């Protein structure tokens, strides 16, 4: 029997007990009340009966002159009053008897005696009245005596009748007393029983209350426990499904509802096997007989599938066997496993060498690509420091800077030369990342590397190609340009005007071709990041002066004057002088070509927050709005038809932008059409830049 049922029975018994006590108590109270009513009735009968005869007892005192007494009574009207009371008492007795109330038998015979007495008493009164009338009429004493004699006889009979009534009363009193004693004894017994019942009821009530309270507490505890278990069952991360011995679902917690995309009502009563994908059912059938923990394919109501893990166990509840399945949706775990498998596959199959060390840089794991690159197997390097790969090509400072970066940022990447197991030195690209745990402590370092020997060879080939192209194009151009210049210069003799004009056209275009080749090669180098920058502290004023000097002749050809505004002596930047000159030359030549004849191109330096701004301003026609977003694009020229402005390659400003970008600066322009155009570039202020940052890049 389970606890709940036992508590219900206890609860019922307690209530029955209480009801029985109430019934018993009520019965006793009714008895007491009945006895009490009978006692009262007896007393009342006794009073009524006594009311019939007691007055006569007083009247019939020995020695009294009855008639005198009667007369007195008559005179005071008392006798009539007695009669009235007597009649009333008789009427009550009659009612009592008619209602067949208890103890009516006690006064049987009294009526008769009382009626006789009443008749006789009336006769006495009549005779008394007659005597009084005779006296007043002065009748003969004999007449009066005759009346008095009859009165005496009547009174004697009346006394006899009363005496008979009094005897009956005496008898009745005895009987009534006996009955009263019985009633009192009964009532006492009832009251005693009542006290006992009250005591028992009190004790019973206390006990019942205790029992009820205990039952309530236990019920509450049961409910609370059931609710708690329910809450737990419904909120665990696993689906909990109980299945009866027929294989049908008996309960289905909320997690299972979410997992299978349905409400419990939809599933309870259905075969559990419906929740398993048909492909997994055979496997399932084999495991139902005993505890199991296996992976299956779950099937939702909408027929979609998901991987799940089932732990099944058999229990017994209320003598009924029950299978309880703990079902876990392992989709995420499967994904994680898949990701891990993928990561492991990548680790094993990638062409990049991977080396994982612990926090003390002792190698823990390497992949096959690492072995392919270095020649060292995992077994040969595990537990060792990656220093075994060092070739000596890098200085101690290099490694110090590497570790400073890893310590500060958790990351380092760069190029270095290492040594393979066979002693061969090879270039590699290395990317090191610190791996941290949840508390931010470094647990591992992961180095990903790839052999850049071929890349380097390819780069060298590209460099050689660029150099070769540069050389091979410039060499014939040098001959063409040189020959034309000598011809035009009259070295080989004076030319006719037409010949001189033709030679000049050929010369101009050969120069244009030279510039085009230069610019294309520059762009190619910048984009391939092959342009070398020799960074050094530069005084901007000096650079501007040199640039103006170098371009003065060119400006004169356009009748334009170059003018440097008041310089700032302390304006210094970290830059490559030749590249900066190249930028300035480009901006100056553009400004010159776009200036009107007689115009002035002004160059100035200004401080702009953390930058020095160099501006080249002309008062040319400006740049059309529609061209603003193309200014720094390759081969972009706002108006290629203007011969005065022609001769450019359309690459100059894109080269300037690439150079300034590489120098960590920015380039831009402001243009007021018809008024002025200002091209400027900003370079970081020198003193803000640590000399340690001076890097020769290339």
């Amino acid at each position, binding site marked *: 029997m389970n606890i709940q049922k036992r508590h219900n029975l206890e609860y019922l018994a307690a209530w029955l007990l209480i009801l029985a006590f109430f019934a018993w108590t009520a019965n006793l109270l009714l008895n007491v009340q009945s006895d009490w009513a009978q006692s009262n009735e007896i007393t009342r009968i006794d009073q009524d009966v006594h009311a019939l005869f007691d007055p006569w007892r007083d009247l019939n005192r020995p020695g009294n002159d009855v008639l005198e007494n009667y007369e007195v009574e008559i005179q005071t009207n008392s006798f009539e009053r007695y009669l009235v009371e007597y009649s009333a008492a008789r009427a009550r007795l009659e009612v009592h008897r008619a209602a067949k109330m208890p103890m009516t038998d006690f006064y049987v015979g009294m009526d008769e005696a009382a009626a006789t007495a009443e008749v006789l008493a009336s006769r006495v009164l009549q005779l008394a009245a007659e005597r009084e009338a005779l006296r007043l009429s002065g009748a003969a004493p004999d007449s009066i005596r005759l009346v008095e004699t009859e009165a005496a006889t009547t009174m004697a009979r009346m006394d006899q009748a009363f005496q008979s009534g009094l005897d009956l009363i005496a008898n009745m009193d005895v009987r009534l007393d006996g009955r009263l004693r019985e009633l009192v004894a009964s009532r006492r017994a009832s009251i005693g029983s009542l006290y006992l019942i009250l005591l028992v009821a009190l004790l019973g009530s206390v006990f019942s209350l205790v029992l009820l309270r205990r039952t309530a507490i236990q019920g509450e505890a049961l409910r609370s426990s059931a609710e708690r278990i329910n809450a737990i069952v419904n909120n665990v991360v696993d689906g909990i499904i109980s299945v009866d011995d027929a294989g049908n679902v008996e309960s289905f917690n909320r997690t299972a509802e979410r997992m299978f995309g349905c409400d419990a009502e939809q599933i309870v009563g259905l075969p559990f096997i419906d929740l398993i994908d048909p492909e997994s059912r055979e496997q399932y059938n084999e495991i139902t007989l005993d505890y199991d923990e296996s992976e299956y394919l779950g099937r939702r109501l909408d027929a979609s599938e998901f991987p799940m893990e089932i732990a099944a166990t058999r229990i017994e509840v209320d003598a009924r066997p029950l299978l309880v399945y703990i079902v876990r949706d392992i989709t995420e775990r499967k994904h994680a496993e898949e990701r891990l498998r993928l990561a492991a596959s990548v680790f094993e199959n990638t062409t990049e060498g991977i080396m994982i060390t612990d926090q003390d840089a002792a190698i823990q794991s390497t992949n096959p690509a690492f072995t392919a690159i270095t020649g060292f197997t995992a077994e040969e390097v595990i537990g060792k420091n990656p220093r075994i790969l060092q070739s000596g090509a890098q200085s101690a400072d290099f490694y110090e800077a590497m570790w400073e970066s890893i310590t500060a940022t958790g990351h380092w990447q760069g190029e270095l030369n290492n040594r393979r197991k066979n002693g061969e030195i090879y270039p590699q690209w290395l990317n090191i990342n610190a791996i941290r745990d949840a508390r931010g402590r470094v647990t591992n370092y992961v180095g990903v590397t790839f052999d850049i020997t071929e890349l380097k060879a390819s780069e060298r080939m590209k460099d050689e190609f660029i150099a070769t192209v540069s050389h091979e194009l410039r060499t014939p151009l040098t001959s063409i340009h040189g020959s034309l*210049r*000598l011809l035009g210069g009259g070295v080989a003799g004076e030319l006719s005007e037409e010949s001189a004009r033709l030679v000049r056209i050929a010369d101009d275009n050969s120069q244009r071709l030279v510039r085009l080749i230069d610019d294309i090669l520059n762009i190619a180098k910048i984009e391939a990041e092959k342009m070398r920058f020799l960074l050094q502290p530069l005084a901007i004023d000096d650079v501007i002066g040199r640039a103006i000097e170098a371009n003065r002749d060119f400006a004169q050809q356009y009748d334009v004057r170059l003018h440097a505004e008041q310089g700032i002596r302390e304006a210094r930047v970290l830059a490559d002088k030749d590249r900066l000159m190249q930028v300035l030359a480009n901006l100056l030549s553009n400004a010159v070509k776009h200036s009107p004849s007689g115009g002035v191109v002004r160059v100035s330096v200004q401080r702009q927050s953390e930058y020095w701004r160099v501006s080249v301003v002309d008062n040319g026609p400006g740049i059309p709005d529609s061209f603003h977003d193309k200014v720094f694009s390759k081969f972009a020229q706002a108006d290629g038809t203007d011969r005065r402005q022609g001769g450019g390659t359309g690459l100059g400003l894109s080269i300037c932008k690439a150079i300034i970008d590489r120098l960590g600066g920015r380039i831009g322009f402001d243009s007021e059409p018809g008024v002025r155009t200002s091209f400027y570039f900003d370079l970081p202020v020198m003193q803000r830049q640590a000399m340690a940052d001076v890097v020769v890049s290339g």
Partner: protein
Amino acid sequence: MKQATLSRILYVEDDPDIRELVTMSLQLIGKFQVAACDSCAAALDLVDEFSPELLLLDVMMPDVDGPATLQVLRERVSAENAPAIFITAKVDAGDMQRYRKMGVLDVIVKPFDPMLLSSQVEQIWRSNRSNLNDNNK
């Protein structure tokens, strides 16, 4: 004191057209004596007899390039003190730095203007002379 003048220039260039152009420019416009040849070996044949005051060398040449030719020529007494100028189409920031470390006065970039070449060469030579004089004082 009479100002020193540049007169003998040993010029090594493998490209015959440019060699002819440069020679013509230096001779006709600069009025210099020019011994032009196409390789390091030919230069070695000439150098002792010619005693150059300036070496003008192309950089990219087959077999022995400009820098190597300079090193070889410097081993000859006749050219050990002769300043050198490179004339080349191959030049970038790194090259320039390397050439200067070798003691090369300057680099003239191809294509150059032959009408201005002589004055350019003389200017570089004079600039070096004045630096030397300043250092000797």
